[in-house]
């Protein structure tokens, strides 16, 4: 990417039916999915039948009964994919999974607040908004885009039920002087929930598509970055 992000990561979000109570660092270590030292040094937020959350040096896991999120801001991101694939292929293969998303996100800083305003102005011009747009224009830095999402339903290179959502907004973590930008590409893959082999299909799709998805997402994010000097 043309601007080095301050924070750069990936999240894999799986939808299905989970048992959060078992998804502790110790369970993952017992099954060889995390090393003993990683599990022992993990920070366990909560382990409960309804929700489990823990973090290690490179992984944050949050699980509810209907959703599991795996999150990392530590390169190499492929490690997250390997972890998810091994978990559901080698151990939790009976877990009903119905969909997953690969979310590639960054927080980056542009050089000046004016550059960030310029990105917002290009993505969401004020002139089509008539009088309201004029009010926004007159308000200067107090008026403009605060969040924008663009969605592509049914991307050509995905099975039915997929969609790609791209969101751009000011960052709440970096560049609090008005220079921080957050961009995330949510690449969502649906699957046939009636298929008893759905876990295997989801895992296979995750394994096959992770790198192309993140690569494509990085192209989109890089383009957003280019708008700062467009």
């Amino acid at each position, binding site marked *: 990417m043309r601007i080095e992000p301050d924070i750069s990561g990936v999240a894999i979000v799986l939808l299905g039916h989970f048992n959060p109570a078992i998804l502790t660092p110790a369970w993952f270590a017992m099954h060889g*999915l995390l090393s003993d030292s990683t599990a022992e040094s993990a920070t366990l937020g909560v382990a409960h039948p309804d929700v489990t959350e823990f973090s290690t040096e490179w992984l944050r896991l949050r699980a509810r009964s209907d959703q599991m999120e795996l999150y990392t*801001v530590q*390169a*190499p991101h492929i*490690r997250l994919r390997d972890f998810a694939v*091994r978990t559901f292929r080698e151990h939790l293969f009976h877990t009903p999974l119905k969909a997953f998303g690969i979310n590639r996100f960054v927080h980056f800083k542009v050089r000046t607040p004016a550059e960030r305003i310029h990105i917002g102005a290009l993505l969401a011009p004020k002139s089509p908004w008539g009088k309201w747009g004029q009010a926004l224009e007159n308000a200067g830095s107090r008026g403009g885009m605060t969040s924008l999402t663009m969605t592509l339903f049914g991307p050509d290179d995905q099975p039915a039920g997929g969609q790609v959502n791209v969101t751009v907004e000011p960052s709440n973590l970096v560049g609090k002087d008005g220079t921080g930008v957050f961009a995330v590409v949510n690449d969502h893959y649906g699957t046939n929930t009636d298929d008893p082999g759905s876990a295997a299909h989801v895992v296979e799709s995750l394994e096959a598509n992770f790198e192309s998805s993140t690569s494509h997402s990085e192209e989109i994010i890089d383009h957003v970055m280019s708008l700062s000097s467009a």
Partner: protein
Amino acid sequence: MSRSTGLVALQEWEGYVIEIGEDEFVSRLWDITAGAKREEEEATIPLEEISEEDRDKIRLGSIFRWVIGYQRSVAGNRRRVSEVVFRDLPVLTQADWDEAREWAIETRRLLGL
């Protein structure tokens, strides 16, 4: 996750081990950042660069990622980092082997071999 906001990769290679010495190992690499699909370079990496927990994973053919990038602290300090991470790839299951065998048999049949 810690006092760091993470490791942002500037450059990333994938590689595999072709030779293991007493203090280092030799690997073949391809440049992930540049989109390379096959190995283009060789590198010798000191074993001391590998974390304790990854040393057990070093075998001939073991696959790893080598990342060079910046690690930022929560306070905003930035330092250049080089990290080698051995991949924990999914094992091949008996079902994988069976499927591959069936595919091979069918392919031979179709080719008249």
